């Protein structure tokens, strides 16, 4: 028993989670045992801990909450500053009803719906999620989430190899945009190395668009991974021509920012075989990078070799509509080491938030959300183009991000902005080490005109400081 009797007589912590505290004896007696230790008689003495865990004492709910408030309060929430940081994660407003519904215990505290008869709620919700994603990206099939955008991209590569390797003239080879952020690339490499897949890179033009000549080399490989908008925020019309170039037997995998698809063509409509993406901008807060949800959608030929769980609509014994997990023979719990992926726990609840957000938006709402993102981006370009010392790097169309070049080092500039209350964007040098003076500026539906003006003002201050020190 681990009661802590406080000097003043108050009995405290951990009690509140253990309904059988105080009943141990009664329960042991019923089993014919003397004490708790009898239950651990099968654990050899030489592997047993001696003494209590060297950890801090238990706390009450109030103390935990107060420590959490103190510690997390010491973090600087993006919303408490003017922020232009995105680079893959985007803070759009999420309607209040989403949080209130997703925390209903029936959703929150359920396991994977292995017993469909009592899990119809989540099963149907995920089937609807698949339907929403399918329409969003323009492909007939979607699974019910992978871990995040990066693992979805990585699993797309191995999936492409599984599907195309036999006919490939460049077997075990995939091509990935050289712009792919190194953290994402690293995930891809980890996922690919076991399958002995070689990842080659595709080059880009100075205006940020894909070099279509470079793409030609990818023909005959198993797959090509490109993003739209690309990591520099550039909308690349060239992508509509890629499928034609690489041909039928090479998978075109497009990584899409889901909010952009309110205005930008669905990749499935210009030939993508697989569309992946970070689902977060729809339905989920940024949450320091997780939990998020990975979108994975594909066309028919990929179905039986794709990763992740899928819900199918079926009937029950009375012929009534019912939903269940299907095609599980691809999965680890059935196929074990021959499974298409090792994924088990995925990101269902975050995908559910995505579904709820999509349900509230509707097609026009998604368009408007995209428009608000894009308008803020356009405004930022309009203002920054006139800001002394700032150059917009790519003369291109952008969705909600674009690169700027500033005087001096990006790192120093961002530190300066930070000192003035602005999270100024992302130092592109962290992705592309040869670049030292470029910042990726991100706008979302939360960006205001004042935010942009504040950024512009501080950037021109920065420029003038640079002038002085130069």
């Amino acid at each position, binding site marked *: 028993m681990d009661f802590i009797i406080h000097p003043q007589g108050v009995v405290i912590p*951990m009690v509140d989670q*253990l*309904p*059988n505290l105080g009943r*141990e004896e009664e*329960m042991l007696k*019923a089993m014919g045992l003397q004490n708790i230790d*009898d239950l651990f008689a099968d654990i050899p003495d030489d592997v047993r*801990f001696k003494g209590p*865990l060297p*950890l*801090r004492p*238990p*706390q009450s*709910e109030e103390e*935990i*909450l107060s420590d959490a*408030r103190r510690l*997390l*309060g*010491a973090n*600087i*929430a993006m919303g408490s500053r003017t922020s232009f*940081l995105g680079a893959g994660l985007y803070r759009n407003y999420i309607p209040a009803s989403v949080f209130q519904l997703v925390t209903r*215990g*029936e959703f929150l*505290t359920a*396991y994977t*719906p292995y*017993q469909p*008869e*009592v*899990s119809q709620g989540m099963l149907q919700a995920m089937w*609807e999620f698949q339907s929403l994603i399918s329409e969003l990206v323009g492909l007939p099939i*979607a699974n019910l989430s992978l871990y*995040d955008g*990066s*693992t979805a991209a990585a699993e797309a590569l191995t999936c492409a190899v599984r599907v195309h390797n036999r006919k490939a003239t460049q077997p075990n080879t995939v091509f990935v945009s050289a712009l792919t952020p190194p953290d994402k690339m690293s995930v891809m490499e980890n996922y690919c190395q*076991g399958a002995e897949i070689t990842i080659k890179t595709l080059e880009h033009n100075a205006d940020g668009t894909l070099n279509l000549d470079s793409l030609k080399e990818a023909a005959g490989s198993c797959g090509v991974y490109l993003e739209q908008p690309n990591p520099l925020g550039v909308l690349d019309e060239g992508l509509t021509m890629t499928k034609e170039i690489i041909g039928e037997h090479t998978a075109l995998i497009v990584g899409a920012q889901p909010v952009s698809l309110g205005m930008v063509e669905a990749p499935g409509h210009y030939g993508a075989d697989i569309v992946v993406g970070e689902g977060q901008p729809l339905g989920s*807060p940024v949450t320091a*990078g*997780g*939990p998020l949800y990975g979108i994975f959608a594909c066309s028919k030929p990929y179905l039986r070799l794709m990763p992740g769980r899928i819900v199918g*609509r079926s009937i029950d014994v009375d012929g009534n509509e019912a939903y269940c*997990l299907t095609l599980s023979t691809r999965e680890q719990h059935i196929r074990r080491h021959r499974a298409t*992926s090792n*994924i088990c*726990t*995925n*990101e*269902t*609840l975050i995908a559910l938030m995505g579904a709820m957000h999509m349900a509230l938006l509707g*097609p026009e709402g*998604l368009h*408007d959300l995209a428009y608000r993102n*894009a308008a803020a981006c356009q405004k930022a370009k309009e203002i920054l183009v006139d800001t002394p010392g700032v150059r917009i790097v790519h003369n291109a*169309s952008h*969705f909600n991000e674009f690169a700027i070049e500033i005087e001096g080092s990006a790192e120093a500039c961002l530190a300066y902005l930070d000192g003035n209350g602005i999270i100024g964007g*992302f130092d592109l040098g962290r992705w592309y080490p040869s670049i030292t003076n470029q910042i990726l500026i991100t706008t979302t539906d939360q*960006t205001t005109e004042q935010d942009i003006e504040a950024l512009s003002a501080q950037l021109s201050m920065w420029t003038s400081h640079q002038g002085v020190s130069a």
Partner: protein
Amino acid sequence: MSHLFNHNGAPNTGYSQPPSIETAVKPSIPAGLVRRQQARWPRLSEPEMVRHYTWLSKRNFGIDTGFYPLGSCTMKHNPRVNEVIAQLPGIADIHPHQPEHHLQGLLSIYYEMQHMLEVCAGMDQVTLQPVAGAQGEFTAVRCIQEYFRLKGDTKRTKVIVPDSAHGTNPASAAMAGFEIVEIPSRVDGRIDLDALRAVADETTAAMMITNPNTLGLFEADISEASQIVHDAGGQMYYDGANFNAILGITSPGLMGFDAVHFNLHKTFSQPHGGGGPGSGPIGVKAHLAEFLPGPLADRRTPTAAEQSTAVDEFWYHWREPAHSIGKVQQWHGNAGAVIRCWAYYRRYGSGLTTMSEHAVLNANYLRHAIHKAAREEGVDHLFVDGAETDVAKHEFTLSLQPAKEQLGVSAMDVAKGLLDRGYMAPTVYFPLVVPECMMIEPTETESKDTLDTFAQHFAEVLKVDAETLHAAPTTTPVRRVDEVYAARNLCLRHPYDE
């Protein structure tokens, strides 16, 4: 029935947005990229949306709904304050790329969690990056792979798993490119050391095993197994899905393991969310530490300038291990889950041992109560223990093989019978080594009353005639779902044309 796609209201029905920023020139999409056909999404007003998802939730069973004895899944109560904490802007509205001085609170929590898991597991370094147990396995196996690669030990292409292993073990090792060697369990459900000796050799990269094993039994020979694998030059990997049984009692470190994953969504109460998210940190011994994916949270004495921003006497910062395999998720793992589990940890602290004790107490008590109720109801001949043992750990298995043979009633039938009585069914047909297996894990957050009542219901279900059980469930939102139909008549999204 409520169908999302049946709603087709006015544009912008569900969520009215503020006006966009006005621009000099309208933002434009290159002509060839303009979306031509909008997604054929439904249009719901907020009231319709709220009612739809409320309705769906009522057709779903969670821990909050009732007893959820799903073996291997550790369906413990999810403390509610954790949800409040996870929605604080200091975690929900944080970008992983913010500079370290914006994230001292987060970093200190990461550090504390790494440390706590290291202590509990007897490991030298933990990384919080993997976002689920399976990803933890993959990550650890990748680290082992790189460890051997760096040592130039290139022949180690095989990973040994017991036949009772969870499917993710072989799947993860295979994903990393290893060949799987499966060894049979002994009749008593434990590891067969002879079988292990027979396969452990210079091609062995690692053995993956969980202890207590998937039958809920403690592998008393675990040290010897470790010895065998280590003698062969391999690494021992501990599947931490069953950590709930041993916290503060023993640890993978004490048992001789080199690497371990944790399922924070099992042991540390991250809600399962109907399938996720989870969090699958891994811990390793020092020789593997520099292969872990980064960033790790580390700390040092703050500089004078840092002192004002510090949350305690340390300055916390990220660190990249020297030979890191790189990343398995693009950011810092499931930070939101880590925060919840940190809150959970804080509630028990050094008392985590009590938590495990109660998990094991409850499992053994339930096992006892089921046998007792079955005897009293005269149905004890219809099942046997999945494996013989005096005590189980946090879960136990039963084999319904006798019921199958004597009455034609399968473990699945019994499972469906339990659904009719308002319970979530235990795990069925896993582990594969137990015929007609039912795997039962009550967790420490269930009361004695709940266990007693469940035991009684379990016995009563076994008294129900076979025909009725074949037809079960009858009281659920739908009756037995035709999984074959689903696979034969694939309908994976809304069919607009029907």
